[in-house]
């Protein structure tokens, strides 16, 4: 999967492969924040430079796509809020590093193919979720908006958002488990 030695040595050929493979996640993160295509492009470029600088904090634990998304999203959000205070960004990077040390994270799949199959299955399952569940999951999980904000955006109660997100994740989780059981 991720070749940490080549990643940490910033092997140019390997970096190109990484950029091409994970560009979607970074664009997704930038689009949450950017208001127009030019701004999104700037955010994407800035996010990749930020990722490159902080590659060493990824130690191979957990899914690389999730790590890339979080680093890119935090960077884009900081830029959007015009928070040029580096201490906050360093603090976040510290949190991400600490998260890898302290918290359980899903192990990387055995192969790239296995990972791609899981992502494709999940994408398929997400497209079958009710629109409101999908929207709530997107805002709460990927946008990291507090429940209160999601509730205001969706014009529903916080408890309803909690229910949408919970049911949605549980449905996806069951679907993914069934898929992997069926393959094995």
């Amino acid at each position, binding site marked *: 999967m991720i070749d940490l030695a080549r990643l940490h040595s910033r092997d140019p050929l390997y970096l190109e492969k990484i950029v091409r493979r994970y560009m979607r996640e970074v664009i*997704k993160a930038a689009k949450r924040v950017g208001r127009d295509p030019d701004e999104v492009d700037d955010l994407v470029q800035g996010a990749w430079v930020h990722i490159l600088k902080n590659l060493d904090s990824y130690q191979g634990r957990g899914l690389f796509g*999730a790590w890339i*998304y979080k680093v890119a999203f935090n960077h884009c959000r900081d830029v959007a809020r015009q928070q040029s205070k580096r201490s906050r960004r360093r603090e*976040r990077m510290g949190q991400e590093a600490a998260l890898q040390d*302290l918290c*359980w*994270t899903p192990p990387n799949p055995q192969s790239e193919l296995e990972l791609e199959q899981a992502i494709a299955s999940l994408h398929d399952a997400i497209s079958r979720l009710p629109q409101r569940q999908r929207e709530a999951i997107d805002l709460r*999980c990927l946008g990291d908006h507090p429940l209160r904000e999601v509730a205001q955006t969706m014009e529903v109660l916080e408890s309803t958002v909690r229910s949408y997100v919970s049911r949605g994740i*549980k449905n996806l989780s069951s679907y993914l488990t069934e898929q992997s059981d069926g393959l094995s």
Partner: protein
Amino acid sequence: MGCPEIDQLIDLFHGRGDRELDDHVRTCPSCQADLKVIFLLPSAMSFDVEVPERLVARVLDALSKPVAEDDVERVSVGQRLTTGVIGFTTMAAALVVSGSAGAAVPMVFVLISLGAGLAVGISHPWFGCWNRDISLGP
């Protein structure tokens, strides 16, 4: 601890977990399955995002340039020297003023002078360089 709410697992994903939650997740297959979904969501929900080749080329070009050009403000040797001279002069002035004032509350003058020096140092962008990230660069 019983299984946490999904919302707590989302907090864990965003780096806001705690030890108790982590201990639980490590031993709970159900929570692990839910967390796996949450960790896969960024990739799954960006599955059909279009990737323009020009943007890839732009990013690769940016990454091929030396790192830290955009993000680290550099402070020249001249600026450091200026800051040092200002600090030293402020300190010297404070000592002279307090000395010339004799035994009449000299510490007050010292503190006022140092306070004024600090205020100048913080407010002036040139002299506030101690408050920034400092890099000597490559």
